[in-house]
């Protein structure tokens, strides 16, 4: 076993790739409305890979456009400022974390599950009239701690994967047993390091044990239930996938009935492949 101290995890996270400046600015502007459309298009256009991914996603069936979107100015005018910001943030984050060298870590399955959870979190946010933009980003990043641990400590994380396979347990339990920490803690550290808002950091920290200060559903509740649904719909394509325990408190706060669940399932699955292709190509 390779026990990791909090200091080691923090130091490892600090060595991860720096996010492009434009992505940091987009993250900091999430939830704010004082950024102009022109300003946003100019920012995104400074990063060619990001601009290309943003346009590819804008043209995917995720947004069902009836005509080709060919410029960032067009994308902002047609899709709206908030949507383009969300798309560009997602594309920027997906581009930063490259294939690691951790034995047994399925990079493709990781991002496919992240995309499924992002779509599902967004669908739940829409159903409960919460911020869809932030929900999508939180869903996309909820497991980023797994990727961070696998990137920073590949040999130790390979032991986690081997332990999980040998005992058929939850990834969270294998991480705690082998490393003494888990991906929710690491995910909170990395998103704090990347200067995400406290609401996003807390949702990621609590995505396996969500908390709400009131009877109303929290962002953490949304991503917790979305994570469960994404595993339950079997979208990552891994034979040994396992649905983590569901928090009944979070379930009751969201108060979903079967009909709503089916709409969320369908909405997630109908957009899933096109978003995977646009973001992960």
């Amino acid at each position, binding site marked *: 076993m390779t026990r990791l101290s909090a200091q080691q995890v923090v130091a490892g996270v600090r060595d991860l790739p720096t996010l492009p400046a434009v992505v940091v600015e987009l993250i900091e502007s999430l939830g704010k409305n004082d950024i102009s459309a022109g300003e946003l298009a100019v920012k995104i256009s400074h990063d060619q890979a990001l601009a290309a991914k943003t346009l590819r996603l804008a043209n995917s*069936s*995720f*947004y*069902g*456009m*009836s*005509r080709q979107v060919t410029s960032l100015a067009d994308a902002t005018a*047609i*899709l*709206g400022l908030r949507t383009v910001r969300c798309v560009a943030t997602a594309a920027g984050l997906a581009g930063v974390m490259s294939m690691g060298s951790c034995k047994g870590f399925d990079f493709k399955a990781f991002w496919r599950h992240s995309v499924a959870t992002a779509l599902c979190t967004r669908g739940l946010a*829409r159903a409960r009239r919460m911020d869809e933009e932030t929900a999508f980003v939180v869903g996309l990043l909820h497991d980023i701690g797994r990727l961070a641990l696998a990137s920073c400590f590949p040999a130790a994380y390979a032991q986690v994967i081997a332990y999980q396979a040998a005992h*058929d347990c*939850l990834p969270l339990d294998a991480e705690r047993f082998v490393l003494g920490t888990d991906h929710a803690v690491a995910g909170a550290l990395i998103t704090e390091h990347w200067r995400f808002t406290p609401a996003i950091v807390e949702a990621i920290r609590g995505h396996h044990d969500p908390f709400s200060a009131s009877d109303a559903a929290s962002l953490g509740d949304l991503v917790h239930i979305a994570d*469960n*649904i994404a*595993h*339950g*719909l*079997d979208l990552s394509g891994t034979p040994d*996938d*396992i*649905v*983590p*325990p*569901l928090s*009944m408190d979070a*379930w009751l706060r969201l108060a979903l009935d*079967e*009909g709503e*669940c*089916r709409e969320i*399932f*369908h*909405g997630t699955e*109908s*957009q899933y*492949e*096109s978003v995977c292709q646009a973001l992960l190509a």
Partner: protein
Amino acid sequence: MSKIVLGIDDLPGDGVLADPVCGAQGQVLLAAGSVLTRRVVESLRRLGVRTLTIETPAAAATSRVAPDAQQVHARVRVLFRHAIRTGVVNPLMHFIPPYRLGDAP
């Protein structure tokens, strides 16, 4: 799944939609799997839709095969094995099989 993007004027008679058609706000206007009758195509044209993704014949034949109930339930039991082992209630375990099998809620 095999699919092809075609101009709305180039569609074969009664093709099957492979990807949903969504509005600018992301709302589904027409679900994947819908049959594109002449009337439906005309409505989409009026909404400004110019291209559609349709299933190729091979993909359409595959997607119309009804899922096997036993296989669906078996896979759900594998995915939800933690809830089954621990006895922790998870309503999703009961919602997903009928959704997969197309049963009425």
